[in-house]
Each structure stands twice: as structure tokens, then as C-alpha cells.
């Protein structure tokens, strides 16, 4: 067997798989961000904070109400989504006519508030959340030990991402959504309630963030800062994929997870910055992003 820079193929295969798992989180998060940007033209800076909120809601459900992981996987995204709908109705809906900048700034402010509040109530150390008993343990794949839970994360992410893609690209509801993005006036002339569509889309995008939060709760520590730095990375993923491109966000999410994983083997110090290097290169060569339709 060949060796690449002293790394055995077994190790490399393991790292690729781990990269894919991280990519699974990037994909769900960037998908939500892309859906929101596509329809609302808002760059949802609060996405990381809502991801964190999803993890916390799962913890709160367990700790105060005794509701376990599986129900939380449905309930927490619903709660986060409902919260998102309130935000959209009360605040964001006032900004659609304005420049993107204002949506970015508003959600940046919201992110500060949400993170600050959780920090005040739950401290910073983080809270424990166990892996559900059905998924504890793991499989020995020969080249690495794969925890069952991580395998589940990849499966759940693929199902959710491609389900969403299918819904938007292939169903009637999706067609309305896409049409409303292009020409809201015309779509409402057909008797479709566009503001409602927009509100629900935001709720859905945010619920995806909450879903990713619940998925993350058992493997990362549930703490108020868990989404703070992630948002910038996910943001970069969306830009690389092409703003507003659903498929682009999904594929780029997985791809960058893998690239990051490989960087961790060959140049671990650089793994935090590699995504930005790629982003700069992509934007300079193909500003609309890898999967974007047109440059604006």
C-alpha cells in the first residue's frame, strides 16, 4: 500500500470519514443559511446562536421535563423555529425593502442578545448531555473505530439535507417558494400568501439550525459559545457554494468538512483558516460561488 507523506491509507481513510461527519454539521447549518438568504435576502448572523439554542432546548427538555433525545430531536427544532417565526414577524419583516447590511446587523445584534442571556443563566462551563442508549457504542471498521452516534449524524444530515433540497426543487410548495423569491408581487397576485411563505421559510431555516444543535449536543459540550465561531465558518461555506444555492450549500458543506479534515492531518495549525483561504480563492476566480447562478 502506498503512503502519502508518511500517513498510512488507513489513517487517511479515517480522517476522510471524520471530515465527512463534520461536514454533516456544516451542511445542515449552511443549508438553513442558504434557504433564508435565498428567500429573505437576509444574512442570518443569528444562525450560530440558534444552533446553540437548539442544543440548550434539548438539555432543558431533558433536565426539567424528562423528555429524552428522540422527542427532543423533533421538539427542539419546532421550539427554535417558533422562536424564529416570532423574530421574523416582529423585527425582520421590517427590513426586507432595505439593503442586506441591515439584516446582517440586526441578526448580529440578536446573536449577541441570545448568547448573552444563555451565558447569564447557564454559565459558561457547559452542561452534560449523554448519547442516547440506542446509539452508544460503535463499530470497528478496521481502519478506525466509528461511534454509532457519528454514523447516525451523517445519515440524519444526508436525509434532512436532500429532503429539503427535494422539497424546494421538486415539489409544488418549493415551486411557490422559488417563484416568490423571483417575483413576490406576481406570486401574491395568484392568491398565494407571500408574507406567510416567507415567515414559514425563516422558521424552517432556523429550525434546521436547532436540529443541528440537538445533533451536536451529545458530542460537543452544550455551552453558550458553541455557535459563536461556527457562524463565520458556515457563512464562508455558503459563500463558497454560491449565495442562495441550496445544492451548493449542501455539497460545499460536506466537501469543506473533508478538506478541513485533511488539513488537520497535514497541517493541523492551519485547519482553522483553510476555509477562508478557499473562500478568498473561489471569490476571486468565480465570485458567484461554485454553484451560484449568476454574479450580481
Amino acid at each position: 500500500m502506498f503512503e502519502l507523506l508518511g500517513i498510512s491509507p488507513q489513517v487517511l481513510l479515517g480522517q476522510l470519514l471524520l471530515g465527512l461527519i463534520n461536514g454533516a454539521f456544516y451542511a445542515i447549518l449552511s443549508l438553513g443559511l442558504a434557504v433564508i438568504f435565498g428567500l429573505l435576502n437576509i444574512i442570518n448572523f443569528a444562525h450560530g446562536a440558534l444552533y446553540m439554542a437548539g442544543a440548550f432546548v434539548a438539555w432543558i427538555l431533558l433536565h426539567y421535563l424528562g423528555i429524552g433525545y428522540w422527542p427532543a430531536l423533533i421538539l427542539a427544532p419546532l421550539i427554535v423555529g417558533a422562536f424564529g417565526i416570532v423574530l421574523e414577524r416582529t423585527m425582520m419583516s421590517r427590513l426586507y425593502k432595505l439593503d442586506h447590511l441591515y439584516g446582517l446587523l440586526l441578526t448580529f445584534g440578536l446573536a449577541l442578545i441570545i448568547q448573552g442571556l444563555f451565558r447569564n443563566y447557564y454559565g459558561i462551563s457547559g452542561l452534560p448531555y449523554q448519547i442516547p442508549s440506542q446509539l452508544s457504542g460503535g463499530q470497528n471498521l478496521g481502519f478506525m473505530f466509528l461511534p454509532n452516534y457519528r454514523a447516525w449524524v451523517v445519515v440524519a444530515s444526508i436525509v434532512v439535507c436532500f429532503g429539503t433540497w427535494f422539497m424546494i426543487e421538486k415539489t409544488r410548495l418549493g415551486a411557490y417558494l422559488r417563484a416568490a423569491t423571483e417575483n413576490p408581487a406576481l406570486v401574491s397576485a395568484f392568491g398565494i400568501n407571500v408574507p406567510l411563505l416567507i415567515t414559514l421559510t425563516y422558521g424552517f431555516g432556523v429550525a434546521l439550525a436547532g436540529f443541528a444543535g440537538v445533533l451536536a449536543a451529545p458530542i460537543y459540550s452544550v455551552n453558550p459559545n458553541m455557535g459563536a465561531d461556527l457562524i463565520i465558518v458556515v457563512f464562508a461555506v455558503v459563500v463558497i457554494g454560491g449565495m442562495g444555492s441550496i445544492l451548493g450549500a449542501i455539497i460545499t458543506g460536506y466537501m469543506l468538512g473533508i478538506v478541513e479534515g485533511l488539513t488537520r492531518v497535514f497541517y493541523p495549525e492551519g485547519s482553522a483558516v483553510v476555509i477562508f483561504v478557499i473562500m478568498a480563492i473561489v471569490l476571486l476566480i468565480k465570485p458567484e460561488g461554485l454553484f451560484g447562478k449568476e454574479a450580481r
Partner: protein
Amino acid sequence: MSIQQTDTPASSPIANDAGMSPLHKAIFLGLLAFLVVLPFMVYPVFAMKIMCFALFAAAFNLLLGFGGLLSFGHAAYFGGASYVAAHAAKVWGLTPELAVLSGAAAAAFLGLIIGSLSIRRQGIYFAMVTLAFAQMVYFVALQAEFTGGEDGIQSVPRGKLFGLISLEDNISLYFFVLALTFGGILFLYRVVHSPFGQVLKAIRENEPRAISLGYDVNRYKLIVFVLSATFAGLAGATKSQVFQLASLTDVHWAMSGEVVLMTLLGGMGTVFGPILGAAMIVTMQNYLATFGAWVTVIQGVIFVIGVLLFREGIIGVISRWLKRPL
């Protein structure tokens, strides 16, 4: 993302091309008089911090409010210059004025490289490219030997101005900082109200028309980018002399966000808005430090209220009341 201003008086052509309008002159003089007595009323280091950030916000505003370009990576120039100035003063033993100048020069150089690559992009893409480059600068600051990692460059000597006047004393340092920052802000004012500034305005309002009039739009954009980076760097370099410290805080993306907040709160595209915005944010951070995590919450609330209710910023609102550009 071209920041189109709604048709407030603030964006109407400046009446007086040659000199300064009497109102602006009066405000600048009043401000100067206030700043001269300020260090005897409040803690001088606190006042110096406000002035550094005021210059930073004013430099940022040149790009956003007058150039119509939203950079999300201005921390790179602010922080990069503060590292260079701190290193120059501590390791090379330069006098404070030379240290500050070398910091600003480094920022100009950085701005030239990053600017020439990013001005080819527009809107949200411009913002993201600048952010990406700023993250790389942050990475260098974290990894490079001379920056001292997360400890930063500490115990930077305050030194002697021109090799003669000791700046150990807070009051003498204060007047050095006052001269630099006030001078910087006046210079930026001149730029905005020069023929060059008028062309910038034309590009911001209608880029295709400016091109058809024969202006080399990219050259103008690059110049304004480099100017903005240079003065952001001047502010960062000055800050490193005041605090005797250059640290990762100054290059972190949160700093880029903070300067947007300052500019937005005060009123972008106004002359005095960024100054007021910087003063308010710094004061708030200073006096709310004891509230711990609530500071973030309060800052977030200000962001939200500002965006929802006062998009023109405080000075923008006042300017509309007075029907005069401020």
C-alpha cells in the same frame, strides 16, 4: 453592497467646496476646545481610547459611508498596525511618532494588497472577501513569532516624542494622541469634501454613469480603500502606544463588527456620526464592565434598536431635524 442613502439632506451635495462650512467649523472648534479640557475632567487613558476609536470609525466610514463599500475585515489594518507599531517601539526602539508612522505604513501596504484583490468584487462578496483576508491576518498574528501569540506584545515603552519629550506622563501622551487623531479626522474630512470626494459620491450613487463619464472607477475605489486602511492603521498604532500593548483583540473579527456598530450607531455617511458612535460604545464598555455578560446583551439590544428604529444613526437623525449635513 452599495449603501444607498435615502435622500436625506446629509447626502445632498456639500454646499461649500472650498473651505469648511461655518457650521462644521464651529463644531470642530467646539470639539477641539472640549478635548483640550477633557483630560482634566476624566481619566486621560479613557479619553485617549475614545479618540483612537473615533479615528478608526471615521476611517471606516470613509469607505462605507462615502465609498459605499462595506468591509468586514477592518480589524486587519487596525490590529496589524498596532502590532507593527508596538514591535517598532519595543524591539527596534523607535520614537513614538516613528513607531506610529511605521504602523500606519504597514496598514497602507496591507490595504494596497487586500484592496487591489477585493475591490474587483461588489456587495456582499466584497464584505466576505475582506473578512476572509482579515481572518488570514488574524491567523498570522496568532502564529507568527514576533506577535507573541495570545500574550500579544506587552510592556511597549511609551518613549520620548522626537527623542525629546517624555510621554510617560498621561497628559503629555494625551496631547500627542489628540494631535494624531484630530489631525487624522480633519484630513479625512478634507478628502471627503475635495473633488476626489465628489467623484467617490458619484461612483457610490451610480457606478455605470461614473464609468461612462470616463472615471477609472476601480482606481478611485482602490485609493479610498488604501486611505481607509491607512487611517484605521494610524488609529490602531496609536492605541498600541496608549495601552503599551498590541493583542489579538485588535485583529479579531469581533473588532471589525464593533467598528460597524460604532459607525452605524453614530450615523454612517455623516462627518460626526462615527466620532459620537465610538465615544458612546467605548464609554458603555467602560462603565458597564462590572455587569459582566450583560454588556453583550445591552450591546445586542442597541444593535437591534438601532437597526429597527434609527437606521440613520444619531447624527443622521439630528442632521435631518436641522436640515443640515453634519
